[in-house]
């Protein structure tokens, strides 16, 4: 969309590669207790798709484009907002002020 960050050819592949490793490393060694919140959290993060949909909608010139773009923004916004609320609600459960956050000790 702009020249400054034009990602061409192998540069893009490198970005994919590094991002994929980042995602893998961030999740690895996570206690099972957090799997559900993490799934919800990552669900929220791909809500960033709303930005792409906004870009498409703002550059739309025809009615079909506008219609699809409208739906895209609608769905993307719902993804982001819903993902956020659900994740916050789940994580609130781990924050009740009890000293109960120690890692599960194998006994």
């Amino acid at each position: 969309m702009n020249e400054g960050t034009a990602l061409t050819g192998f540069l893009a592949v490198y970005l994919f590669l590094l991002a994929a490793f980042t995602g893998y490393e961030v999740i690895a060694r996570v206690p099972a207790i957090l799997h559900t919140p993490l799934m919800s959290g990552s669900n929220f993060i791909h809500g960033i798709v709303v930005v792409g949909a906004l870009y498409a909608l703002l550059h739309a010139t025809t009615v079909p484009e506008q219609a699809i773009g409208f739906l895209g923004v609608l769905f993307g916004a719902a993804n982001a907002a819903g993902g956020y609320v659900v994740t916050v609600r789940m994580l609130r459960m781990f924050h009740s002020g009890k000293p109960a956050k120690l890692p599960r000790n194998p006994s």
Partner: protein
Amino acid sequence: MDLLLQSCDLVTAFLLIYGLRRMSSPATASSGIVLAGIGMLVVTLASFLYVFGVSGDARAHLPVNLLLAGIALLLGTGWAWWGGERVPLTAMPQMVALYNGLGGAAAGAIAAIELLVHPDVSNVRLVIAIAGGFIGSFSFSGSLIAWAKLEGKLPKPWRPRFLQIGNGLVLLVAVASATAMPALLPNATLLALFFVCSLAFGALIALPIGGADMPVVISLCNACTGIAVGFEGFVLNHPALMIAGTVVGAAGSLLTLLMARAMNRSIGNILFSSFGETAQAAAPTGGQLKPISAEDAATTMCYARKVILVPGYGLAAAHAQQKLYELAKRLQEEGAEVKFAIHPVAGRMPGHMDVLLAEAGVPYEMIFGLDEINEEFPTTDVALVVGANDIVNPAARTDKGSPIYGMPILDVDKAQQVYVIKRGQGKGYAGIENALFTADNCRMVYGDAQEVLLHMVQAIKELASQR
């Protein structure tokens, strides 16, 4: 203006990854999601800076487009926020599925617009846009089916004979229309055919999968949406989208693998073999179900030295987590050692039951995972199973014909006495007979978990007052 826009993207990419990182530890999780939320807010607001970059034809449409964007943002955010706040924690998995599907649809929408308007880009971009569109649509319809199943709107897995053929056919048409695209675009009919087939493929994959496997499907769709978003980010030349999407794609794939491993099944096995077909081949267990009243069971527990409570989804469905914790506290007062045993896939998602018990206020120290608690069952006086079925089915250890053979289970059958609180005599989520229920040391307490637990607590109170 470009610099500002790009700085915002950079900050967001950092905040999203750092937020996800913080979410992967219980102590910092809450702050992680807030950080990620701030990042999302920044990038969404910044994207309105695009209006300064709009040129040519689109400029005339800008007011209308802005209005549409505003309405869509408000509607989408408002509806999802309202829905997310209202939904009970027990219904969380299907809500995640729904929101995830919408994200996939948004990625599909971007692909549709790009293919409709800019079919003249390089072939690489075209291919990536098509791939993203396919994966996004697949994720959308798959997630919707998962949502409908967990909501109970599609009670039975649907497995007609022609399904496999239909599936292959749909995939073939989707691939064929995709291959024809570089030559024939822009062509609305071709695009429509492609998207319809992609959607149908996702639905046909998800339809025959049993409800017990749905968490894996949701997680897989989550990863798919991430990948689709990353692809569309590449097409739009938007690094933040690429990074966030790819990170989620990789993280989601790993989560899916971890979940499948917890159930001792491969992803391929879950996606392409249906649970039910082998289930019919499983040997009938025979033997009698032996009912017992809640009061009698409570009396036994009252004199037990060690009690392990095994919650399953039925507990959550009856909203009886609080009552179970109350029972645990009563038993502790009577001098019993009480522990909660949680199977990795108890509830509807890995970790779901931990969340539900945490909500009820059960301290972390009382909750034990499969590996930690399994060797304790032989020295346990009473194991109380509440609304769980497949995760305590000994057939997983012994019966090679059983569809859940090899899945790690909680060895409750090794306890001195087992009580199972169950609503009725039906089968579990996977539709399999459970040999535990007819075992010699097992008694069934029929009824709603909430009521049964209430009776148990009362019975223990009375006993305690008589002493």
